[in-house]
């Protein structure tokens, strides 16, 4: 099998940008990714482009992929728009990897974009509901936060997870995001403030929830032969896993975890020939605080039910054994749906190359990204390693 290498990656600032369009955001991310390539990158050599977007607020345009790739001069390249809710660009990343492994492309890009902040609150809530099970779950009156709140409720009842455990996710990720110049909510938040924030969907409060953001991300992947021309600091896609599950929580076998995460991680670990213990650091999908805790368990970082004590132990802090969400995660960095999975790859790219600035952690050789669509209907997990195969 041919290996795929990550040779460039960048994201825009995540936040609220009323003066930007989906195309200008994508362009900023793309040019940033081109600039991040060590060697001379010729955009006319892009064979395949995969672009993730949900199309929030009625932007579910036909041809939204080519609409952004033409804007950055990729006219002619094969382009496919990918939709997997919040896992759209994680899915795009896997498609680009597969295209290179299959020999269908020597250079492929994977990216995504979303514009979410220029709508009324009503519209945003309407569109976020589109990522859940719409006929029954949504019609029971629940919100996206409500579904994760139900998982938190069950996790607390079954495993003794506490309010403090949830808020530790917010406090940690805000501390990390405060060091990330691209973060949407780049400020620190004390554990006490996180615990006492106003309620949204019990047991989740405002600080258990990520923001909705505008933004874009782009990753450039290359075959080994192409990568040798483009970089001296190769980052190999060692494992690319993906799985699906029932879209509605009520139809899944567990309320306290995301089965598609376990399935996708198992594939990614198998491909990379590693185990969970071998992962040095991770960017996980913390759309809600409980989601990060469940990810620890579903990815195998700790035993089932032990996520609360695991975060309390400090293992996932920047100075811990396995830092998680050094970028600030969705919680602090922001969550422009279609751009989120690509944004996770950007952080891993920077950390592995020693280019993460104030939040750089030394000695990292293997990173993981975990991107979830909806409440677990689709999950993509990637393992990245420093160096040639």
């Amino acid at each position: 099998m041919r290996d795929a290498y990550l040779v460039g990656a960048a994201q825009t600032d995540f936040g609220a940008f009323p003066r930007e369009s989906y195309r200008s955001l994508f362009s900023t991310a793309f040019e940033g990714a081109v600039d991040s390539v060590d060697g001379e990158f010729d955009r006319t050599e892009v064979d395949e482009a995969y672009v993730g977007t949900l199309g929030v607020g009625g932007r579910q345009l036909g041809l939204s992929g080519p609409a952004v790739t033409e804007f950055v001069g990729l006219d002619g390249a094969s382009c496919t728009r990918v939709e997997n809710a919040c896992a759209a660009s994680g899915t795009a990343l896997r498609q680009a990897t597969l295209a290179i492994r299959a020999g269908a492309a020597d250079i492929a890009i994977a990216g995504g974009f979303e514009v979410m902040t220029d709508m009324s609150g009503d519209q945003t809530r309407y569109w976020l509901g589109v990522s859940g099970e719409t006929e029954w779950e949504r019609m029971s009156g629940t919100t996206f936060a409500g579904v994760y709140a139900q998982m938190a409720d069950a996790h607390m009842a079954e495993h003794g997870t506490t309010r403090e455990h949830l808020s530790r996710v917010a406090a940690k990720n805000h501390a990390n995001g405060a060091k990330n110049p691209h973060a949407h909510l780049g400020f620190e938040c004390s554990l006490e403030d996180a615990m006492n924030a106003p309620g949204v969907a019990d047991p989740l409060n405002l600080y258990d929830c990520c923001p909705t953001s505008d933004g874009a991300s782009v990753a450039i992947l290359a075959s080994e032969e192409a990568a040798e021309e483009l970089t001296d600091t190769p980052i190999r896609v060692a494992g690319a896993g993906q799985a699906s599950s029932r879209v509605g929580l009520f139809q899944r076998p567990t309320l306290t975890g995301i089965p598609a995460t376990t399935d996708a991680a198992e594939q990614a670990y198998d491909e990379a020939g590693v185990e969970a213990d071998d992962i040095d650091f991770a960017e996980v999908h913390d759309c809600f605080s409980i989601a990060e805790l469940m990810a620890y368990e579903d990815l195998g970082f700790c035993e089932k039910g032990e996520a609360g004590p695991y975060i309390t132990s400090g293992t996932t802090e920047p100075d811990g054994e396995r830092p998680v969400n050094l970028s600030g995660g969705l919680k602090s960095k922001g969550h422009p749906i279609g751009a989120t999975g690509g944004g996770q790859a950007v952080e891993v790219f920077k950390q592995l190359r020693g280019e993460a600035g104030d939040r750089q952690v030394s000695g990292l050789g293997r990173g993981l990204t975990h991107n979830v669509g909806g409440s677990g209907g689709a999950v993509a997990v990637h393992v990245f390693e420093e160096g040639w195969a």
Partner: protein
Amino acid sequence: MGAYLSVPSWWRNLDGRYRLELGQCPDCGAHTFPAEGACVECNSTADFETVEPEGTGEVVAGTTITGGAPPEFADLQTQEGSFGVAVVELDEGARVPGMLTDCDPTTVERGDRVEAVVRRIYEQEGIVRYGVKFRPMD
């Protein structure tokens, strides 16, 4: 179609909306709600036997929504301040999502017994849509 449910697509499912009709799998015997698609237990696509459940069960997960209700339920949230939404495991085994009614939702806990009652769900296009909500039993 998005998240918007047209009147015909609501009516298509009235046996599920009013009576929580379940599908029993001929291969493994498990009950699936709603009674269509693949079996939640074994993924069999063999035709379900439709079963009308007792309508009683147990709360297995719940939340009280205090902010950001979907537009269909925004008025309800304004009027009531908050409302409860649970996943209920029916006595037949299938899990069903439903709103809580006739109670203070903050007092409902996992393990509590509830029963299905038909209530107004929401109004759209001038048509009131009815369906099942869950009421605590004591």
